[in-house]
């Protein structure tokens, strides 16, 4: 049984068909790309998989369990975490809190412990903090732990978002345009980093990206959508030479640049 199985996923916004009959299978450790022109429905697909929207039709199965109808926190707890196209950190909170709060579903102590602060509470909180610092250290962000998230430069905020997603202990990580707004140097670091995360955390990664350099270099398979429909699926080489893809991207510089 594949880890993730998406069957006939379809979504309408009123009369607008944003996603139509989307299908995908992913295994542990896969790195899959999702590309398509602006407004093609990519972010909507992530929103459907994570439960932010409920699909009009179709199924999302994680290890065979249907996630459709579950609330987002339940889906995240089962192992799917994401970042956002436009950064959605908790701005006023510290970087450390941003990471720790993402462990909400792993907290064992109850309401009473959270008020009385017994030994069990401290043992667990200490562990939460230690793990958070370990994560931040991996991203070179441990020095900024006590800084408010909003005070970090854009590139670092992107990293905090990835670290926050990892703190939920996902098996599948969804990245929505992680390279947006980064300079070429930062993008190279990011590519390196995504592959390192996959190795170290043994996860599957599914990435939406406009930067073809990223997609073509790190993804094993690429899905291309246009107007909500899948128009191609294959290896980077196959996608590069697919006439329908080239047509969909006609006039979009990003593709030529790859």
């Amino acid at each position, binding site marked *: 049984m594949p880890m993730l199985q998406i069957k006939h996923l379809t979504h309408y916004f009123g009369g607008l068909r944003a996603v139509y009959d989307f299908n995908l299978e992913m295994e542990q450790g896969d790195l899959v790309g999702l590309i398509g022109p602006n407004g093609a429905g990519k972010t909507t697909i992530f929103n459907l998989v994570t439960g932010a929207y409920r699909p009009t039709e179709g199924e999302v199965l994680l290890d065979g369990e249907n996630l459709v109808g579950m609330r987002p926190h339940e889906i995240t707890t089962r192992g799917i975490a994401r970042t956002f196209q436009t950064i959605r950190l908790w701005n006023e909170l510290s970087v450390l809190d941003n990471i720790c709060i993402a462990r909400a579903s792993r907290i064992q102590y109850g309401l009473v412990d959270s*008020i009385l602060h017994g030994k069990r509470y401290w043992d667990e909180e200490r562990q939460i903090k230690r793990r958070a*610092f370990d994560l931040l250290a991996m991203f070179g962000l441990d020095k900024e732990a006590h800084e408010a998230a909003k005070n970090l430069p854009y590139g670092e905020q992107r990293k905090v978002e990835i670290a926050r997603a990892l703190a939920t202990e996902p098996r599948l990580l969804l990245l929505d345009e992680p390279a947006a707004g980064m300079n070429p140097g930062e993008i190279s670091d990011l590519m390196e980093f995504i592959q390192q995360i996959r190795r170290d955390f043994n996860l599957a990664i599914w990435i939406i990206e406009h930067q073809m350099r990223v997609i073509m270099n790190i993804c094993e398979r690429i899905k291309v959508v246009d107007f909500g429909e899948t128009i191609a699926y294959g290896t980077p080489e196959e996608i590069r030479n697919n006439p329908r893809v080239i047509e969909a991207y006609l006039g979009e510089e990003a593709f030529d640049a790859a």
Partner: protein
Amino acid sequence: MKKYYLPLLILVLFVGIVGGSWLHVFNEYWQLVILFMGINIVLTVSLNLINGFMGEFSCGHAGFMAVGAYVSSILTVWLFADDKIFGPPVLPASWAIPLFPVILIIGAIAASLAGLLVAIPSFRTRGDYLAIITLAVNYIVKSAIENMEVIGGPRGFVGMKRVMNNMAAVFDAPWLLIWTFIGMLATIFIIRNFMSSTFGKGIEAIREDEIAAELMSVNTRRLKVIAFMLSCGLAGLAGGLFAHGPGGYINPGTFTILKSTEVMVMVYLGGMGSISGSIISAIGFTLLLELLRPLGTYKWVVIPLLLVVMMLFRPSGILGNKELTDVFPKLRAIFGAEEENYAHAAN
């Protein structure tokens, strides 16, 4: 050594306030002012959990206060006072002393259950339903009490003075002041500890970005219900304390939207999401109300004006979302022991 500063400070305050009242170092008027300060701290800190930390807008705090006030007064009068409606006392007066805090807690639980009834429909869907529903509930609670003749209807409910007198007859101590002090400490302790836990900080994540919180595994609906019940429960506690004050009398007119507004004003003056701000503001506002008492109803001209001035010059309140210990780090020696251990553990 440092870790004894806070307990020592609390002890000094307790002995000063309670001992001072007992020995009549300050007169009954000042005892009343201190009592109101304590009650207002409970109200302000508890409302701050919702309107400040969680960023929702509850405008019916007085409604939940009323639930606690009536439930606890009915219980104490029924159990410990000779009353026209409830008959002779059910239990001997000596039981009133240990049972008084239990009854206060029952009043708080009743208010928090009322909060649950409000929270379920309000938090089912996103949006600003809470403001409207709490506003409505404040009116409903007031009208419901007005229509219950058994508990005095619009004329109000009396008899609590007899309860307090009976308690004082068994052992003479400023019982209400003692329990108000403890209730205030408990409120600060509960909110501060809860909001410093990773579990409780999910509330701030909800304020910052609710959708991101839900997607990052925070069970936002459950957390919002818990926070709201906690806040309403503490409002009920404040109500119970208030009802047993020197007047020995409550009426539905006390728990109007004006009272709710007063609490909201204290929250905004102190700073949204600042516990120490709420404490300072509750103390300051109580004093201000007393200073303006000679003005009668005109104080409701002066207070909104002050609020406008405040919004112009310091829109985020006295402390903003900071704590006193952030502004004066030296105070951490007294108030910040717990956090400090924490930083060490983490590094």
